């Protein structure tokens, strides 16, 4: 227990690093995921085809390999980013297809009659999606999106193994340095992760109840 208290500053630093990974990669994944989802439902076949391939490929690649790509191949292509930004890029890429799929299943969840009604009123594609479908899909999509963010929180630990000093990285160093207190050190790391994931989980459950629509 003393080990944990003595090293609290290191923990907090790691925690902040994890949170910033989460925020950066989360924001990036939301943006890219939304673009991919929009491409997926668009009328242009090449756009939707590209989005489908992008989703399938990234979803079936292990995160470890995606991070390897960022750590090995990106420098080869001429990037000189520090490890932190490589990790952000990797996590963003890995998370974006899950965001896209969550959005798409939300859009698919809107009853078809809504779209038919909008179309029969003469609204175009942009109007139908923007004014009718999306506002309804949005509320259904929030809880799944939070779940994606929770998974992202847990996935940041993999970046910790790739030289980013996040919570997992700090925990590993401390566990190696204090062989006699491994249990306490690692339980403290777990607690910090739970500090993020459990409130997010509760939030998702709340919002899900709040947004539950009876149709």
């Amino acid at each position: 227990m003393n080990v944990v208290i003595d090293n609290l500053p290191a923990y907090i630093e790691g925690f902040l690093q994890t949170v910033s990974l989460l925020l950066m990669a989360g924001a990036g994944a939301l943006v890219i995921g939304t673009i991919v989802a929009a491409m997926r439902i668009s009328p242009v076949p090449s756009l939707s085809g590209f989005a489908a391939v992008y989703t399938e490929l990234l979803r079936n690649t292990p995160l470890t390999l995606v991070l390897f790509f960022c750590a090995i191949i990106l420098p080869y292509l001429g990037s000189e980013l520090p490890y932190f930004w490589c990790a952000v890029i990797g996590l963003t890429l890995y998370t974006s297809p899950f965001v896209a799929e969550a959005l798409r299943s939300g859009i698919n969840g809107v009853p078809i009659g809504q779209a038919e009604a909008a179309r029969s009123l003469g609204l175009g594609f942009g109007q139908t999606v923007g004014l009718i479908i999306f506002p309804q899909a949005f509320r259904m999509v929030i809880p799944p999106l939070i779940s994606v963010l929770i998974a992202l929180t847990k996935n940041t630990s993999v970046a910790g193994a790739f030289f980013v000093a996040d919570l997992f990285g700090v925990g590993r160093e401390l566990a190696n340095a204090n062989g006699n207190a491994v249990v306490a050190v690692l339980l403290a790391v777990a607690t910090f992760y739970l500090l993020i994931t459990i409130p997010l989980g509760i939030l998702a459950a709340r919002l899900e109840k709040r947004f539950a629509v009876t149709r």
Partner: protein
Amino acid sequence: MTSVLFDAPGPRAKRRSRIASVIVIVLILAGVGWIVYTLAQPRESGGITLPGYFDWSRWEKPVTDPEFWGAVGRGLLNTLQAAGIGAVMALVVGVLFALLRTSQSAFVRVPTTIVLEFLRGMPVLLMMLFILLVASTGAFWAVVLALGLYNGAIIGEALRAGINSLPRGQREAGLSLGMTRLQTKMLIEFPQAFRQMLPIILAQLVVLLKDTSLGYIVGFNELIRTTMNNLSSFYGNRYLITLFIITLVIYLTVNLTLSWVARRIARRRGGRAPLVVADGLATGSAVLVGSTTLTGAAANPEDATTE
């Protein structure tokens, strides 16, 4: 759905869509082409000029060596073995958790809930490290046990949701026939819940396979560690990208095949996903998301997975 959103394209829309397609394809090709071109350039490192990446000399040594493929095969075998044992364990643990979580007695239910939340809220990687360091089981069992526990917790929650979504009459009928609570649960409720949640469970097992790659970090010689660590130090760093590409192709082949099989089984055998999943189910894990689609059309099980 998608087809309702826009009219069947007329000649002008068709032309525009074709132009947009061409532009997109050109852009994608340009991006890929740039990467290929950059990789193909000769490169100086430490005073030696290495030929570009698509030069045969950067591939020849490993690719023509039977020993190399033997090592890759062993790595793949280790990955599949860990995934297989982990999957069986996850199913057993899942059933156990679902059973305890729906128990009548609060003394069983509440601690189980806490353990479940704990397991689901913490990274698998941390769990692997924990088991490796605390229980000193060796890397293989650290990977298998962590994957089994973590995915077991998720499958357990899925099964519980499946049980909750069954009509109450099923349970009541079982009890009124004189079956005990356990019998009712094992013989009446579980088989139906399992069937209903099959798409989610299968998708989670694919995730489990993908997560064996975390073994790389805790020192288990699975596929990625074999290629990117052991073989790259054996053959030399100049083959690193070659090895990366080979690993990526193997992983994609295995995972895409498995996802496809899972999807087929789910479509053929699985019941429809429940229309509304019980509250709180989507918390903590990202897995159960797909089933909340209200269309009820057997959602693509892959939609559901995040890890």
